[in-house]
C-alpha cells in the first residue's frame, strides 16, 4: 500500500470556514497542487482552487502551505512526509472561496504605475549590459506571494498607503530602464509609499522566481528617493552643475 499524506485544506468563504482533512496517496514527485487535484477529483468536487500552468509560470496557484506563502505547483509533498499539510488561501486578500483569494486590488494598483515612457524615438537599440539589471524584474510572474507576505499589507492592511513589493519591482523595471524618460521618484516618495517598507526582506524570501526584490529593486529605489529628497549636498552640487546636466540625455 502506498504512503498517504494528510492535507488539511481550508473550506469556506468570506462568511467563514474551517480546515477539513483529506488523505491522498503519495506518489513520487507529487506536488501540493497534484494532491489538491486528487481531492477535487475524488473527495470534494466543489473545492475551489485557482491554477493554470502547473509549471510555476502563470503565478495563479499562490496559497499558504503550513503558514508560508508558496506556489501549490512548486511545492513538493515529499518535503512534508510525516506531517499534516495545512493549506489556506493567501491571507492578505479577501477570500472568494476555499483556496481562491480576490487579488483584484493588485490590478487596480497596476493601473496607477506610470508605464514606460521612451526618451528616444522607437525603435531604439540598447546594450545588453544596460538591460541586464531590469531583466531580473521581468522574471516576475505576478503570483502576489510577495504582496501576501508583506507585513505592511498583511498585518497593517495599509493598502491605501503602499503599493507593495510587486509594484516596487514594476516601478524599478521602468525607472531603471536605460531608455525611459519618466520620473517616478515623486510617486515612490508619496503615493506609492516606498518608505512604508522597512526592508525586512520577506518578499525576497518567498519569491518563487528568486528575484532579489529588496536588494535590487526596493533599496535602489529608496536610494533614488534619498537622492532627490534627503541629500542637501547632492542638491547643491546638482544646482551648480545644472547647465551640464542636460548632456545626460539618452543618446545611442
Amino acid at each position, binding site marked *: 500500500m502506498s504512503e498517504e499524506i494528510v492535507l488539511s485544506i481550508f473550506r469556506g468563504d468570506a462568511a467563514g470556514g474551517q480546515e477539513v482533512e483529506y488523505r491522498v496517496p503519495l506518489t513520487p514527485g507529487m506536488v501540493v497542487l497534484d494532491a489538491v487535484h486528487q481531492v477535487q477529483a475524488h473527495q470534494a468536487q466543489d473545492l475551489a482552487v485557482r491554477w493554470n500552468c502547473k509549471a510555476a509560470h502563470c503565478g495563479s496557484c499562490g496559497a499558504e502551505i503550513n503558514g508560508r506563502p508558496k506556489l501549490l505547483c512548486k511545492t513538493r509533498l515529499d518535503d512534508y512526509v510525516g506531517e499534516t499539510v495545512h493549506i489556506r488561501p493567501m491571507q492578505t486578500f479577501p477570500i472568494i472561496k476555499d483556496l481562491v483569494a480576490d487579488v483584484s486590488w493588485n490590478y487596480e494598483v497596476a493601473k496607477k504605475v506610470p508605464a514606460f515612457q521612451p526618451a528616444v524615438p522607437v525603435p531604439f537599440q540598447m546594450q545588453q549590459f544596460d538591460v541586464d539589471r531590469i531583466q531580473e524584474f521581468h522574471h516576475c510572474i505576478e503570483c502576489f506571494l510577495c504582496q501576501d507576505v508583506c507585513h505592511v499589507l498583511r498585518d497593517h492592511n495599509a493598502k491605501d498607503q503602499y503599493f507593495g513589493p510587486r509594484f516596487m519591482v514594476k516601478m524599478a523595471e521602468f525607472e531603471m530602464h*536605460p531608455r525611459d524618460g519618466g520620473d517616478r521618484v515623486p510617486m515612490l516618495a508619496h503615493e506609492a509609499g516606498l518608505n512604508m*517598507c522597512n526592508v525586512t526582506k520577506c518578499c525576497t524570501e518567498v519569491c518563487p522566481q528568486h528575484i532579489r526584490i529588496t536588494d535590487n529593486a526596493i533599496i535602489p529605489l529608496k536610494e533614488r528617493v534619498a537622492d532627490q529628497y534627503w541629500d542637501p549636498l547632492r542638491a547643491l552640487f546638482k544646482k551648480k552643475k545644472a547647465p551640464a546636466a542636460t548632456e545626460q540625455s539618452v543618446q545611442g
Partner: protein
Amino acid sequence: MAQPMQTTVPSRKKAEKHLPYWVEPAFTIVALGGFVIYAIWEVFWHNTGTYQNYVSPFFSPGVASWFGFHVLTALYVVWVPFLFRFSCYYYRKEYFRGFFFHPAGCAVAEPNSHKTRVYTGERRFPFNLNNLHRYAWYLAVIVLIFLWKDTVQAFIFKNGFGVGVGSIILLINAVLLTAYTFSCHAFRNMVGGRKDCFSCANGKPSTGYKWWRRVSSWNHFHGGWAWASLFSVWAADLYIRLLIMGVFNDPRLF
C-alpha cells in the same frame, strides 16, 4: 543575463528546510543586544583604549584628545559607527525583526499591541533619518581611514616591525570593516546604481558600471560582512581591554 550575483535557484533541501522563525530574531537580540550592552560599558566606564601600539576601534580616532578632553573619550567617536549601523539596510531588517517584531518572521502575525498603533514604517522620526544613511557612510569612511592607520601602527613595535596577536586581530578587523563599508547599498547607488544607462556616453560600459558590478557582488554578502565586522570590533576591543587590565600579555609571533 541577470544582475550581478542574483540569487541562484537554491537546492531543494536548502529551500524547504527552514529553521523556526524565532531563531533569527533570538540571535539578533542576543548578539546585537549583547554588543550594545558591552559598548555602553566600554564607552561610559573607560577613558582610554590604548595599549602600547594597539588602539581599540572604540577609541579611534582620538577626537577627544584633539580638543584636550579626557573624560568619556570614546563617546566622541562611537556615534559614527552607531549611526552607520543603525541606518544600515541590513541591520534594519535585523532590528525590525528582532526588537520591534515588525514582523518577527515572514508571515508571522505581529503582536496584538501593534494593532492599536498606527504603522508608519520609515516615514516618521526617527526611522525617516535612515534616509541619511549615505552621510553616515561618509563619516564611517573617515573613521575607517584612521582604523587602517591604527592597523599599520599595530605592526610597529618599539624595536621595529613585528607581529603580535593583537596586530593580527586589528588587521582582520580593518579588513572586515572595509568589506562591510564598501559593500553598502548606499555606496552601490553612489558608484553607479543611480544611473539608468551605463553606455550612453560612448556605447561602452562606463567606469561607474564596472564599479557598480563589483560593489553589487560585494553587496550580496553585506549581511555576512555586517555580523563579521561587528564581532571583530567586539573581539579587538575586548582583547585590548584585557591587555590594559593586565589579564594576559600580548603574545609576539615574531
